[in-house]
């Protein structure tokens, strides 16, 4: 079971990274109100600890975690709590959110003295990550402290830094690795401190040779960390494919990475862990790529969470052409948004503005059974048949044909010459099956 640096299946779409890959990360200051949805993570929504009219400082906790699988939320500017009300978020729902009026002073709280990593106990490290509200910033938003508390910590053999960034157009992780590689490495070291038997692997796609070089140089004296260049292919950064490519271990949909002795965290998450553990700073920023052929000046920004999307577009020079579709995230797994009046959340990695919607340009035709989806599927299933089962509502056959092994990466829809909405159909069926399982 050797690591092969790749996986079976996958696709090579136009990567669009040239638009923004040479643009350094730029700090931007929010102008309007900041909105903090109470549910920016998987698990119970956070509970507000401030009320309307309260004055808050940058870095002050405004909502506390509601249980173990939950995460607190912090103010990213100083100002006044204007309201706690329903606000629209990227997925289109209206959810409870705290609205803060920015006073423009950016007064910060005192984060307190910080003990060096070596003097912290494992419990203290996890506690700090939990307190800082760190969640998986690759997109899922799973609270990181839960991930860092597996049942048998001694059995964790690999901590994998997900530096693949396989989604087309996204360059936020790339810029982070180029500009602040030490922070990523230090974040990985914080996680390694929790698991005595673990080795650290920094898994980078080989289309970023400069990152591989820098990370290798900086980790040459770190016996526990290796840098691995993986084959450039979408979805190399999907958790299960990444673990397989980096370690040769394959987990199925019923398993967690920890079951195979692995913990996976992405670049931005590791940086957040680092500032939580070494500086006592809560999660307040994230890097967002604003790109696409409709954007005048595609860029990478360090954004204060809560900043309105309109401001990001303005900072990137606005639209040079009318966008037909705006995607929150990458083009393969991101979701289309219909309203820009939404806040940046902990999980927003990119804002992609496209002048053409390739999906609606072509009409769906009948399946010709060509098998391109089968060759492309990293989950090793038969997407075309699963979509047929989904259309018929045949849950039994869907599960028998391993429908639950789908990771919703979108490769099947991408390659389909008949332009079928395979991923969409399979995704909805998976949701129904998962809902059924929950009921039982």
């Amino acid at each position: 079971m050797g690591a092969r640096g790749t996986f079976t299946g996958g696709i090579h779409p136009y990567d669009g990274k040239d638009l923004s890959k040479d643009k350094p990360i730029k700090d931007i200051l929010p102008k309007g109100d900041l909105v903090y949805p109470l549910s920016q993570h998987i698990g119970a929504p956070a509970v507000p600890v401030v009320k309307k009219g309260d004055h808050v400082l940058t870095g002050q906790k405004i909502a506390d975690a509601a249980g173990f699988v939950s995460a607190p939320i912090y103010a990213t500017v100083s100002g006044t709590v204007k309201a706690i009300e329903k606000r629209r978020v990227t997925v289109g729902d209206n959810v409870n959110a705290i609205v803060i009026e920015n006073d423009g002073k950016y007064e910060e709280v005192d984060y307190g003295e910080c003990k060096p990593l070596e003097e912290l106990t494992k419990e203290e490290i996890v506690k700090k990550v939990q307190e800082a509200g760190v969640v998986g910033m690759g997109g899922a938003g799973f609270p990181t402290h839960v991930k860092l508390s597996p049942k048998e910590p001694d059995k964790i053999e690999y901590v994998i830094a997900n530096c693949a960034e396989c989604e087309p157009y996204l360059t936020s992780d790339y810029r982070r690795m180029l500009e602040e590689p030490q922070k990523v490495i230090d974040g990985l070291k914080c996680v390694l401190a929790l698991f005595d038997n673990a080795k650290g692997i920094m898994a980078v796609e080989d289309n970023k040779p400069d990152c591989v070089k820098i990370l290798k140089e900086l980790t040459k004296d770190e016996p526990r960390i290796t840098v691995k260049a993986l084959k450039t292919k979408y979805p190399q950064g999907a958790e299960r494919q990444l673990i397989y490519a980096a370690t040769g271990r394959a987990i199925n949909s019923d398993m967690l990475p920890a079951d195979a002795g692995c913990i996976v965290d992405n670049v931005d998450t590791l940086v957040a862990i680092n500032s939580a553990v070494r500086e006592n700073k809560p999660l307040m920023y994230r890097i967002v790529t604003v790109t696409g052929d409709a954007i005048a000046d595609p860029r990478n920004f360090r954004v204060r969470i809560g900043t309105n999307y309109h401001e990001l577009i303005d900072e990137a020079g606005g639209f040079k052409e009318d966008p037909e579709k705006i995607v929150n995230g990458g083009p393969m797994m991101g979701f289309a948004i219909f309203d820009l009046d939404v806040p940046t959340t902990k999980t927003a990695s990119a804002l992609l503005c496209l002048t053409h919607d390739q999906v609606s340009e072509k009409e769906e035709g009948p399946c010709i059974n060509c098998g391109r989806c089968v060759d492309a599927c990293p989950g090793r299933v038969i997407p075309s048949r699963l979509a047929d089962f989904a259309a018929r509502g045949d849950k039994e056959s869907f599960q028998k044909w391993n429908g639950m092994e789908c990771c919703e990466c979108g490769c099947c829809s991408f390659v389909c010459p008949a332009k079928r909405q395979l991923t969409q159909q399979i995704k909805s069926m998976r949701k129904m099956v998962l809902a059924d399982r929950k009921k039982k």
Partner: protein
Amino acid sequence: MSDLMKVSSNPHIRSKAGTSKIMLCVVLALMPAAAFGVYNFGINALLLILITVASCVCSEFLFDMICKKKNSIGDFSAVVTGVLLALNLPPNAPWWIGLVGGAFAIVVVKMLFGGLGQNFMNPALGARCFLLISFTSIMTNFECDAYTGATPLAVLKSGGSVNVFDMVVGRTAGTIGETSMIAIVIGACFLILLGIIDLRIPGSYIVSFIIFICIFGGHGIDFNYVAAHLAGGGLMLGAFFMATDYVTRPITIKGQYLYGVLLGILTGIFRIFGAGAEGVSYAIILGNILVPLIEKVTLPKGFGRGGEKI
């Protein structure tokens, strides 16, 4: 910024591949074989090809119109069926053979089952077998101006000797498009380079067929005999253009290998133990029928359940 934004489920980008593009490439890939057929057999071959294609396209158009369905001839699949069927006809067949065959292929074998993607049998082969049974004397008469003798495979079966070089080039009697191994392989290479077909089925088909005739052919490992069997009859056309037909081959990867092996064995049985010299058409049609079963036994296991490596 316009008020109307498009929203849809992920992914938001699509590859450039399209059904009609694929079909057009297959038509193009069949052109070397068709051109050689016309060069080899004369103008009647060209006429037959044109009539068969026209018959296929018109049948689909009329069927769609009568059944009030959306016109589907734009996907060019009817053209592929027409060319394939014509390449499987004897060069001196009367014009109405192409007309009847084309209509049968499209209406009975394809459209009645639901149109493109729904047929369980290759339309061109279904029609060929229908013609072969219905008009046996016409369909097995390969005599024409250029060639008066039997097909090389028939000669081989009766124990005669054949010129393998002529067979590879295609200067022999046979159906319009099957005689030239070189022309067929050129077209096949074009499709393989474009990634439209792969070697899973043709490779396992040809290899298993070679092994079969080496064991049961009665000539042992005789290079000339094996080469004659490969170049003769419809094996090359069948292996590269008909066994690889998307709709009627298994979609599972392991299933494709199994299907190829099955076709190799069936073709061997029909050619060596059967009454006729040919066997490719029947082998593929029989294989088509077994596809659901093949898919069932070769279902992939899924990532993380033992199916991650293929």
